[in-house]
């Protein structure tokens, strides 16, 4: 379980601290779990670590929040000033063609999952910062700037906590002048709340074979921009989604645009990572949709404030692994509770965190190694029927294509009401379905105009991403020769296209193609870990506090 680079260095010199519960990740599930724990077990010591420089630094979502879980967790959220200030007032689902768009009629009947009445448009990062305030008031110890780098396991195979990453390690892997070893945060229970495709979750999943008997997880990549637009164009409360152009029938995805706050617009694009065409560039798709007449007018005269990207879990209930193991559990999007048709994962992540907290409180009281009642609690709560009801929709898109999938979901929603007696399955992991470059049609993307559409580097610039320069590269290509024979020869380096931050570049393309890794640009989206055809890229946490710094409003 150790990061090979650091093994010798830190094993003997690490300080230790003990808690009842350690939570890895300061997103909605981790924070909800922390708060719930202190509510039901006020004497339990709870420590939450977050790899971003502050809570919210790495949080990225649309977001339209369903307040259901928040209402249960903190019923006085309105009076306590939770930043849910823009209620949804208007919704549109647009089918885009190259030049035009058609609005889906009777949206609430045809796509009832999309109904957003009673929901709020906000920045999830702002909401997390608010939740962190409540958590600290309740006595949770929160430490941003520290990455969970290693899972601690005792001789009996029980998870006994995590170790934070060493700081001040040089690029060559040797301790630098300011070397500070990681710290062991030992706990009776560790909750992994790393968000989609967690790196420690990956290890724990392998250790306990948590994915046995469940579908492979399938993912989407969401790429987002925050804009400030002229007041005249601002329609607070407007929620728009699109599908169709520019994606082909075999590629799932679409755009969103939400108006909220002070002349702010959240715009973004999700691409299902089970896309087959290696020439696809999710970043460029996201950029060019801004030029579509349905969206373009909102960007004219506006100012781009921030940029970011993050993968999200789309497998639904069929892909949720076993949730508990001795000494811990998985919560939030790292387990995969996102409701895909609703395009919402926050309320489900929070609920899963709360349920895990209740299970942990029970395990604490009864001295059980595994917070086993978590799974039962999930099944007994609204979480399970909610996810069960939509379980076939995303797999239908994978199976039948965009048009077939849309048709199926209409039927599923209106006639079957989510109660189909069958369950469609995700058969393949996303990395397995990429097709060779030689049989895939190239895509001609327009060049950025610098006013509405932009290039990767200037976009990364607006994510305020930074990593300490002198540190080991956190993106490990296990087998470089495989890169040449597979990534390049067969697929022509898809990572140079799917990475939304320009981390992967092919150098000397014409003469002797080599992979160049600009690790400093990484926005921690995890797409490379997901989509590399032979799973040859391993994403591990870089030095704590590195990565994006998404601002308020983002």
């Amino acid at each position: 379980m150790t990061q090979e680079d650091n093994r010798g260095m830190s094993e003997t010199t690490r300080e230790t601290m003990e808690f009842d519960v350690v939570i890895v990740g300061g997103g909605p599930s981790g924070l909800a779990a922390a708060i719930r724990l202190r509510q039901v077990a006020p004497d339990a010591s709870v420590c939450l670590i977050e790899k971003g420089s502050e809570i919210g630094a790495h949080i990225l979502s649309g977001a339209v929040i369903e307040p259901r879980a928040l209402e249960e967790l903190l019923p006085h959220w309105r009076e306590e000033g939770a930043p849910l200030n823009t209620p949804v007032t208007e919704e549109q689902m647009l089918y885009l063609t190259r030049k035009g768009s058609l609005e889906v009629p009777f949206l609430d009947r045809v796509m009832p999952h999309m109904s957003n009445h009673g929901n709020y448009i906000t920045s999830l990062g702002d909401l997390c910062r608010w939740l962190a305030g409540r958590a600290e008031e309740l006595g949770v110890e929160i430490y941003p700037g520290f990455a969970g780098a290693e899972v601690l396991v005792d001789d009996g195979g029980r998870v006994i906590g995590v170790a934070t990453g060493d700081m001040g390690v040089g690029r060559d892997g040797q301790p630098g002048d300011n070397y500070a070893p990681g710290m062991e945060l030992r706990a009776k229970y560790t909750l992994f709340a790393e968000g989609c495709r967690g790196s420690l979750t990956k290890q724990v999943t392998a250790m306990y074979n948590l994915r046995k008997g469940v579908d492979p997880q399938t993912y989407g990549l969401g790429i987002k921009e925050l804009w400030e637009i002229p007041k005249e164009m601002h329609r607070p409360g407007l929620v728009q989604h699109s599908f169709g152009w520019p994606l082909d029938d075999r590629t799932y995805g679409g755009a969103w645009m939400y108006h909220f706050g002070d002349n702010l617009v959240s715009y973004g694009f999700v691409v299902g990572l089970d896309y087959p065409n290696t020439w696809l560039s999710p970043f460029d798709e996201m950029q060019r949709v801004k030029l579509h007449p349905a969206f373009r007018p909102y960007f004219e005269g506006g100012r781009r404030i921030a940029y970011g990207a993050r993968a999200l879990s789309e497998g639904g209930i069929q892909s949720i692994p076993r949730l508990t193991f001795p000494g811990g559990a998985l919560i939030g999007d790292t387990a995969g509770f996102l409701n895909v048709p609703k395009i919402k994962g926050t309320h489900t992540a929070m609920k899963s965190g709360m349920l895990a907290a209740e299970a942990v409180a029970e395990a604490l009281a009864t001295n059980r190694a595994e917070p086993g009642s978590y799974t039962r609690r999930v099944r007994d709560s609204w979480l399970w029927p909610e996810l069960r009801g939509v379980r076939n929709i995303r797999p239908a898109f994978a199976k039948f294509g965009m048009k077939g999938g849309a048709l199926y979901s209409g039927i599923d929603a209106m006639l079957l009401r989510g109660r189909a007696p069958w369950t469609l399955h995700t058969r393949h992991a996303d990395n397995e379905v990429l097709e060779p470059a030689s049989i895939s049609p190239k895509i001609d993307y327009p060049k950025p105009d610098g006013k509405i559409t932009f290039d990767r580097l200037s976009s990364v610039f607006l994510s305020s991403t930074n990593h300490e320069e002198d540190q080991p590269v956190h993106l490990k290509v296990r087998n470089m020769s495989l890169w040449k024979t597979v990534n390049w020869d067969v697929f022509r380096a898809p990572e140079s296209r799917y990475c939304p931050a320009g981390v992967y570049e092919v150098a000397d393309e014409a003469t002797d193609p080599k992979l160049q890794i600009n690790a400093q640009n990484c926005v921690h989206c995890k797409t490379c870990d997901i989509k590399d055809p032979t799973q040859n890229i391993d994403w591990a946490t870089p030095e704590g506090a590195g990565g994006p710094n998404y601002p308020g409003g983002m």
Partner: protein
Amino acid sequence: MKVLVPVKRVIDYNIKPRVKADGSGVETAGVKMSMNPFDEIAVEEAVRLKEKGVVSEIIAVSIGEAKAQDTLRTAMAMGADRSILVETDVVTEPLAVAKVLKALVEKEKPDLVILGKQAIDDDMNATGQMLAGLLDRPQATFASKVEVADGAVTVTREIDGGAQTIKLALPAIITADLRLNEPRYASLPNIMKARKKPMEKITPADLGVDMTPRLSVISVAEPPERKAGIKLDSAAELVSRLRNEAKVI
């Protein structure tokens, strides 16, 4: 020996500052804040002096809003022994800050005050010099090396085109430049321990200081965007234009 280290909470240096649409200032709401990088260097220097046995106590002080506590906690995690928060919501200016620090210096009687040379928000580069003036004590700005021996401090400072070395009798005021040292990380164990270190909270009124700024901000704007220039056909034309038109060579 006692050292006083003032620290300021500013927009984190990784963040691109954004001018508010109404031109009233730079957006700080919802933006990551951190200790001014030059102040980190000042704290680090104080901690190194303590590790050398020269200094026995480090007091971190911050003048600003309540959230400046976070910055003081970071200073204590780096090695400051205790801290003082002088709480005010008024925008701070070096003149007023220097007066607050003067009052604290008269109270605490440190032998050294080490400050960052400037804050990366207002780029004033004045507080250390002003404090020294108010106290009528020797100053060494832009320090790249600090050595304490025999009741005096020898400082090498960066000047245009090179370095200057001066020797100051204590008590003295030093401002830290980039190359003085590389600050250590506030490690997690130290952050946890720092939660128990004392933090005193007072106000400028307690020290008899009026914080009213002398400068009022009329407006804040983004710098004019550079426009594309012209394309030339030859090296000869370029050199000619640089000589005669731009007059830079």
